[in-house]
């Protein structure tokens, strides 16, 4: 990935949080952990670039983001949420353990798709704890 793919520090990212990772108002940091599939860990943590949607507020981007995920056949749970993080703060928080990059990683029908990447598998839990601490807020993915 090219350095130019890095998201601007004053921009923001959404991370999808499944309902199983939420207990009341608490979001479990493991939801920020890269998953292991077929014995191999993901190269980066999947997130979505808020500013790409061009909406006035993060709340306004929730519905179009949800539609993107549904179109990708990603199961969006009724109790799930989108966590919002600032790019610079997320990197600064993760820096306690690792220097991470946050880069755009376009996917078919999902240009906002981005990755938090560049850290060792052994630091998966550590970085996840720090990213959770960098959360600004979270939004329900599904309107009530």
């Amino acid at each position, binding site marked *: 990935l090219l350095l130019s793919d890095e998201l601007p520090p004053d921009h923001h990212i959404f991370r999808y949080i499944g309902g*199983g*990772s939420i207990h009341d108002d608490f979001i479990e940091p493991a939801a920020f952990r890269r998953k292991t599939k077929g014995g191999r860990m993901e190269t980066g943590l999947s997130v979505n670039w808020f500013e790409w949607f061009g909406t006035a507020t993060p709340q306004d981007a929730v519905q179009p983001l949800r539609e993107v995920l549904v179109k990708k056949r990603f199961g969006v749970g009724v109790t799930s949420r989108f966590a919002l993080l600032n790019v610079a703060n997320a990197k600064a928080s993760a820096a306690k353990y690792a220097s991470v990059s946050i880069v755009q990683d376009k996917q078919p029908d999902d240009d906002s798709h981005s990755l938090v990447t560049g850290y060792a598998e052994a630091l998966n839990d550590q970085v996840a704890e720090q990213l959770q601490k960098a959360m600004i807020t979270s939004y329900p993915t599904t309107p009530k």
Partner: protein
Amino acid sequence: METAMSRAVISGAQPSEFTSSILLALFETSANDAKRANTRETSRWTQFISEALRRRAVPETSRWAQFIGEALHRDQSGRTPFTTIPDIGTDESDSLRIFNAIQTLYLSRNHPRDRQIAERITDLHRVVLGEGEQISAESLEQFTEFFRDEPELAFPRITMTPEGTLRARWIHDRDHFVAIEFTGKPLVRLIAEVPRDGGQTASYFGSEPIESVVAASRKLGACF
């Protein structure tokens, strides 16, 4: 070997002692196995469970898992439920293991906390099923055994990781917590942050044997 079901029989627990939500959770697990879980089915089976409770159709608590599984099978084959109650089988499916774990916690007589945990697991089970996921039966069994052995620990935040394992987290402050991830293996994952003198925070990420994870956490200064 003593099981949740045999304990229920020994304790003389009756079906009325179960909440319909826990029974419904069992149905949802069974229906998910049969790839039949949907809103209409759930609504119909909520009525079915309510009716079974009203009629006292199941004489023993231990028969509920079998009863619902059998009724589901009869329903699929076009026969009417509520006829006969079969003998208890030896089904070791994940569905039954999950139900047994919830039942063990729900029937615990030593701590109201365990019922609170059972209700949380029931809710969590339902949420993750709705997202096409399932709690690891091995993790839940380890989790259940752990809380039975540790009655003095407070009610934690309980969540499921993306891998299906359960995590319990006792949070005192932003940088003061202890979390255990129940891997279903002899070594569980331990994560803790503990305040130290001078405004510092000690962080710990490691693995510990399930038998000694509480003692190891306390040595670090973590509290539950």
